[in-house]
């Protein structure tokens, strides 16, 4: 405090001298505390990812990995030994300070790299990070939905480092959601792949479709659909979101990410839209341009991939360099899309001219198609190194099939070794409660065929545009 006072007063005086030639500057000396950290050495323990001392996290059925680092207000000019450890004693102080009554997340589920030891070098303001692993939650020793605390404390040997009790602690507020069901239905289990008519249906209903054994029924949902369109003025192909799709994307955290947190893969359907920019009539340049836009969409909105449905496009002007029928354009688009987003999924509906080519640029389709789903009544077939595990063995239109029993069909899909079962458009069109239940019944019979158990009765229903369910009659 004293040292900075001298520096600042001297420097400010010098500044005043220079400025006095032009105008007067009014200096407020009343709050010197603001400059205290310039000279004193204040240490804090922070999360390495968020750089925060208080970190709310959700933990489910897998471990949570992050890191912690020790921060100092300036380069310390000498080494500082720091030890990071779980500090159970801090809980009482924390609860008192915040008026909470959290319990501790068990210390045996917290692992800190390097026995928690850090040596801060003299020229560092942020130490290297120690890996921190927080083991997954459960519902036997922990209460589901309850928030627990992990208090980590940094202990410092150096006498010049000052830390308040709050600065020396990095706290994780761990919400145990291990009791929330997810989509895992066993190793090698057939996965469900469902298209929602997004113009009619709220994807949150995914959370209401559960097996009697508790797991979520739907593994993949497709938002049907965004469109491929052509902007003649800009001379480019683009992704069009109709107002309903746009609403879901704008409210991503409400409608989509809650599903992804539970293990549901959220896929954006891409459909032709009555202009010349069809999915299976792009040139290589056009495919690369459109693939980039699809990748931007998936990364921007945190989606898991795309599904291509080659319908409703017009014949293109083949003199436009973006359009072509040559070189297997449908396959080319899938290839380029996978290149643009290799960590996302490229899926295709076997319709139009999208599917059937096994190799593009020497690369087999198994590298650029993740899932192929058939038209109603059919089975998808593998091409280019794919296997039946990459294919849906059946496709059911739920609106037409409401109330029908599809158990044997599902059993057939499972016994033949297919990887997926496709369904289309539940709760769409002119829907009413009894029809909803009929469709759930049909899905329940599919569940029986695939997993040996049916679905729980669906008691709540999310209307389009609402994040609050209503009771089903």
């Amino acid at each position, binding site marked *: 405090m*004293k*040292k900075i006072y*001298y*520096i*600042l*007063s*001297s*420097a400010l*005086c*010098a500044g005043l*001298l220079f400025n006095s030639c032009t105008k007067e500057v009014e200096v407020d000396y009343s709050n010197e505390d603001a400059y205290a950290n310039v000279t004193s050495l204040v240490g804090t323990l922070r999360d390495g990812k968020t750089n925060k001392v208080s970190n709310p996290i959700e933990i489910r059925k897998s471990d949570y990995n992050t890191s912690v680092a020790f921060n100092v207000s300036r380069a310390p*000019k*000498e*080494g500082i030994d720091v030890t990071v450890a779980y500090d159970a004693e801090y809980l009482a102080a924390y609860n008192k300070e915040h008026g909470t009554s959290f319990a501790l997340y068990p210390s045996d589920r917290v692992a800190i*790299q*390097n026995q928690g030891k*850090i*040596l*801060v*070098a*003299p*020229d*560092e303001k942020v130490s*290297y990070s*120690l890996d921190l692993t927080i083991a997954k939650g459960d519902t036997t020793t922990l209460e589901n939905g309850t928030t627990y605390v992990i208090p980590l404390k940094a202990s410092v040997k150096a006498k010049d480092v000052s830390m308040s009790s709050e600065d020396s602690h990095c706290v994780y507020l761990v919400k145990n959601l291990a009791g929330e069901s997810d989509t895992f239905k066993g190793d090698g289990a057939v996965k469900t792949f469902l298209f929602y008519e997004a113009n009619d249906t709220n994807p949150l209903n995914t959370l209401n479709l559960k097996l009697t054994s508790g797991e979520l029924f739907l593994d993949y949902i497709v938002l049907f659909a965004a469109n491929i369109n052509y902007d003649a003025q800009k001379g480019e192909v683009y992704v069009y979101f109709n107002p309903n799709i746009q609403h879901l994307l704008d409210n991503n955290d409400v409608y989509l990410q809650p599903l992804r947190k539970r293990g549901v893969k959220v896929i954006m359907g891409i459909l032709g839209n009555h202009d010349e920019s069809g999915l299976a009539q792009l040139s290589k340049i056009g495919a690369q341009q459109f693939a980039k836009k699809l990748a931007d969409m998936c990364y921007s909105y945190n989606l898991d991939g795309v599904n291509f449905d080659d319908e409703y496009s017009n014949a293109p002007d083949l003199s436009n360099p973006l359009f072509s029928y040559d070189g297997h354009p449908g396959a080319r688009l899938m290839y380029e899309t*996978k*290149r643009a987003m*290799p960590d996302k999924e490229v899926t295709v509906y076997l319709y139009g001219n999208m599917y059937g080519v096994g*190799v593009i*640029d*020497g*690369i*087999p389709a*198994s*590298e*650029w198609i993740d899932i192929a789903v058939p038209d109603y009544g059919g089975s998808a077939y593998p091409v*280019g*190194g794919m296997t039946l595990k990459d294919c849906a063995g059946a496709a059911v239109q739920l609106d037409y099939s409401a109330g029908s029993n599809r158990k044997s069909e599902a059993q057939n899909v499972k016994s033949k070794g297919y990887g997926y079962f496709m369904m289309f458009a539940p709760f769409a069109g002119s829907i009413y409660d009894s029809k909803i239940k009929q469709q759930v019944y049909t899905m329940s019979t599919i569940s029986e065929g695939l997993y040996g158990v049916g679905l729980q009765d669906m008691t709540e229903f999310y209307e389009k545009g609402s994040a609050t369910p209503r009771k089903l009659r």
Partner: protein
Amino acid sequence: MLAAGILIFSACNDDNNDIESSSIELSSESIQAGPEGGSYDLSVKSSGEWRVSALCDWLTFSSLEGKSGDKLTVTVAPNGTSEVKTAVFKVFTGSAVKTVTVTSAQAFVVQLLSDPAYKATSDAEDVSISFNTNVSELKYEFSDGGDKWITVGERVEAFGKTVVNFKLSRSSEFKDRVAKVTISGADVTAPAELTFTQAQRDTAFVVGMDKILTGLEAWDKTIDIRSNVDITLNDFPTWIENKSFVKGTDKDSDGLIHSTLKVHADASAGSRLFTLSFLKESARLGFFSIKQQNPNPIWATIPDAGLREVLAEKGFIIAEEGVEKAEVVGDGMTATSVEIYSNNIKSIYGMAAFPKLTSISVKNCTYLTKLDLTDCANLTSVTVQLLSRLEEVKLGDNPVESFAVGSGSYFFSYSLAISGSKLKNLDVSSTSWYVMYYENLESIDVSGCPAITSLKSRRESWGSAAKYDILYMSKAQIDAVAAGTLKVDKSPKVTITEKK
């Protein structure tokens, strides 16, 4: 004033003089390790005791502290990855710090991502194998003569992987064949190994004779069969008795099982043929002809196997598989009409062998492009239906006066020429809606029909004309149209053009 301030500040920090004046020197501030790793010595000169600040799981240090003149040994673990790794650590005393950058060179790896054991059928096949590799030129070594049937195709880099296409040639071997491919490259310490197993070519055949061909007398024969799978036989006709079929159980060194079939044939009044088939489940692996031959046969040459099959089924001929020369028998000698209905026929040549034919109907031969009946001298009636790739009809001088392509016809062919010297009424019209969507036909040529007096050529569906718009006629026909002696019904878009 500022300098004064700093002086004042400095004057107040006598305790830190040692820190401020500290110094440290290292013999090197960088370490470059190869993929094999290694130990590297650094000498440290410092104004005081030094320490090491580091956290890296592939670096270990001989000591984390020391005094001036001490040696610091840094051990870099081997880098088994295909990527260069870098890390930094710091050595310091007081406020003096030296940062050392360590680079661990990547290993040259060939890591197989696909299943290391690939099982192929006996047919030719392209197999895409994925690797993780940073080796620019891969080398391939084949065991067990694998280079005779495995070739290395294109290498492509995509999706962070290397994909190499291996081409397996078709196997004619009686046994499975196996070859290991070792994939390596310069400085690769752990080559990848890939094993291809290609299935045997399932086979069954007769040794010692290529067929049984006898006279009409009764006989007993022994047939020596070799196969590399368990086979069954097709059903025998009543005139051949299966006396015994003894199947071997063990394979010889050539991979084949020996089986023996003893058969008896009764005496016959005429030629008859049985094709013995060797079956693996429902698949036919081979066949063998057994024939009692009339000593005075009438032969027909019918090149198209599909046509021979149809005529044999109708009892017109006896035909051995793969042999164009067939014997005309039974109905083939006396029939006046025949209907040819098959998707497997590409040529209709050979129908002149049936002397009594006056009427022929050809249907659903969708790969037939040319209907040449010029040598069928007695034909008076020719009927066709759904010959969608038809390009030419030649009736020659046969007494066929009327011919129609059918009202439900549609053509993928682009042109159609019809000729016949006796033809009077020609109907090439269609009302099928297919003509609007699938038909490619652009022109019809009737210039080879000098006797026609009526031509119907309207190809329309629901009032809309198909693509066809050129009608080729001879000069005489065009004159006849003008004179009203040749009546032509056509769509307005169709123009009559003289055939030069």
